């Protein structure tokens, strides 16, 4: 168990800077999720923490130790990979015990720790199988077990659920959450899936183009996104962004004045989440229904408010609309976000 500190970490491959001055403190026992679109540098950052890539500048500390120049095996970390990365010619037991065996641990010790990990992950019946005889979910459990056996200070997960089908992914997500609660270990988890990030994280780190955009708890990010990128990335379906104006202390959408605003006059981007739009016959916004997606309990309604003003509203599934119907909406002031016009 340990803290993890990144100070001014940068990484450069040839001429491209993939990470720029990353500063982050992860508390002991915290589960931090790095999230961002592909190519944002989140996996590279994880590999830097693991020691699989060398930092160009900056320091990585685990506990109170500066590990920036230590090889991966000396850093007290364990990593779970997207492709599981099991040794195909070793049985489940062989895979679980391999690192300990290599480190020269006594056989009794290895057996005790392997059995304990197998019990946690319910792998007891699979111990003598080879990885190719396991299902995807089982393989991922072995990969996680291999990390547990090493009793690391910090667990690193690199998109561990991406190769699983949707149902299994939800199941394994819960498993990982349970594991975190049970072990109380410091964990860093990389994903491009904002749902995984929201459900798993104590804190989320949103990254873009090698920089951290915002760090915060899932609810902080959801309620108070620092910028348009974070606002658009967190939440599903994504937040609606509308070109609006500030005129005489009010936000104006099209010709429709909305709530008051203290900003100076000029163009602005108004953000509102689909789930915060309310069907309201007296509402200030009106538009034609373009597409109606019914999910049973709820429905996504695609509405055209005007030229270049399209929104998705998440409404309850009671009322069914047809394309062409007119609908009136209101947007509660406290749920609206204002961003610099882009």
């Amino acid at each position, binding site marked *: 168990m340990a803290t993890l500190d990144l100070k001014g970490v940068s990484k450069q491959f040839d001429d491209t800077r993939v990470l720029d001055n990353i500063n982050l403190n992860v508390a002991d026992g915290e589960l931090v999720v790095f999230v961002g679109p592909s190519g944002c540098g989140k996996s590279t950052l994880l*590999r830097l923490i*693991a*020691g*699989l890539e060398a930092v160009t500048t900056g320091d990585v500390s685990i506990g109170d130790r500066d590990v920036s120049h230590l*090889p*991966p*095996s*000396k850093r007290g*970390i*364990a*990593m779970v*990979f*997207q*492709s*599981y*990365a*099991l*040794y*195909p*010619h070793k049985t489940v037991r062989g895979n679980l015990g*391999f*690192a300990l065996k*290599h*480190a020269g641990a006594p056989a009794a010790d290895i057996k005790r720790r392997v059995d304990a990990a197998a019990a946690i992950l319910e792998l007891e019946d699979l111990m003598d199988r080879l990885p190719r005889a396991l299902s995807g979910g089982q393989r991922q459990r072995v990969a996680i077990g*291999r990390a547990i056996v090493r009793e690391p200070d910090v667990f690193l997960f*690199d998109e561990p659920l991406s190769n699983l089908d949707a149902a299994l992914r939800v199941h394994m997500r819960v498993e990982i959450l349970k594991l975190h609660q049970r072990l109380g270990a410091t964990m860093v988890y990389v994903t491009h899936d904002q749902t995984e990030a929201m459900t798993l994280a104590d804190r989320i780190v949103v990254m873009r183009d090698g920089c951290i955009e915002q760090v915060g708890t899932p609810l902080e990010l959801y309620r108070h996104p620092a910028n348009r990128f974070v606002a658009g990335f967190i939440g599903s379906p994504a937040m609606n962004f509308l070109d609006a104006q500030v005129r005489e202390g009010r936000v104006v959408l099209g010709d429709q004045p909305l709530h008051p605003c203290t900003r100076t006059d000029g163009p602005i981007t108004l953000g509102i989440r689909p789930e915060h739009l309310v069907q309201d016959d007296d509402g200030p916004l009106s538009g034609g229904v373009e597409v109606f997606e019914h999910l049973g309990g709820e429905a996504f309604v695609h509405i055209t408010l005007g030229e270049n003003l399209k929104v998705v509203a998440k409404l309850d599934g009671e009322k069914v609309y047809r394309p062409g119907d007119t609908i009136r909406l209101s947007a509660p002031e406290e749920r609206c976000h204002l961003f610099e016009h882009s």
Partner: protein
Amino acid sequence: MPWRKRTTTGQALSAAAIHGVLLAWCALALFPLYLVVINGAKSRRAIFNDPLKLPTSDTFSAKGYASVVGNSEFPLYFGNSLVVTSVSLLLILLLGAMAAHALSEYRFRGNTLLGLYLIVGIMVPIRLGTVALLELMVNLNLTNTLTALILVYTAQGLPVAIFIFTEFLRAVSREIKDSARIDGLSEYRIFFEVVIPLVRPVIATVAVFSMIPIWNDLWFPLILAPGQETRTVTLGVQQFIGQYTVDWGAVLAALSVAVLPVLVMYIIFSRHLIRGITAGAVKG
């Protein structure tokens, strides 16, 4: 249902056609071998009178095999061939796989260029350099040694080996190597304990493709190591070919025996070989 029946008939026909073609090819490929084996067991006269006929009680003669077995030099030639082939093969596989691993795994300046340099040897027949090689061996005092042959064969086999290995080693998951690094394995142990077991079929493929030309080669033994002590089987067989008479029975018997080790090694490797070739085929 009639359509289903048609399909099965069609399938049977196409299977029969495929097997027909393969059998024909097999017969064509095995025919020379068959001639060598049967004529090796016939008397000299019978070989010339009716080369295609199986040995009968009249024409059977073990004289060929007797002169091969009775020839005290033959086990020596055989041993020389085995040493040269197996040591060269070992070096080709080891050095080839290691070079390919380095090329596919590590990022360093000039990686592509070095890879091209190592592979370009495929396009230059090594026999073109015979005179230079002979001079080199003379200067190194290596003429009439098996070392000379081993060095030349290793050089000859490496480009193709590196080419094939690089392709397959690139396909080895990077994550599995990273995982081994986190487990604390040295780069050498990652290579030997993680990478090599993953590419066993490829090793078998490269082994068979490299082994046969070495075992069958006559050129370099004749030029670099024609001495009595260092003759290989293919060169040794030549002693039965005189200037005026040729002991065909002995030549053919010797060749029949010489096929055996290659056959044994092929059978050992072939299970993997098929997997190696199809793996490449599916991967595309």
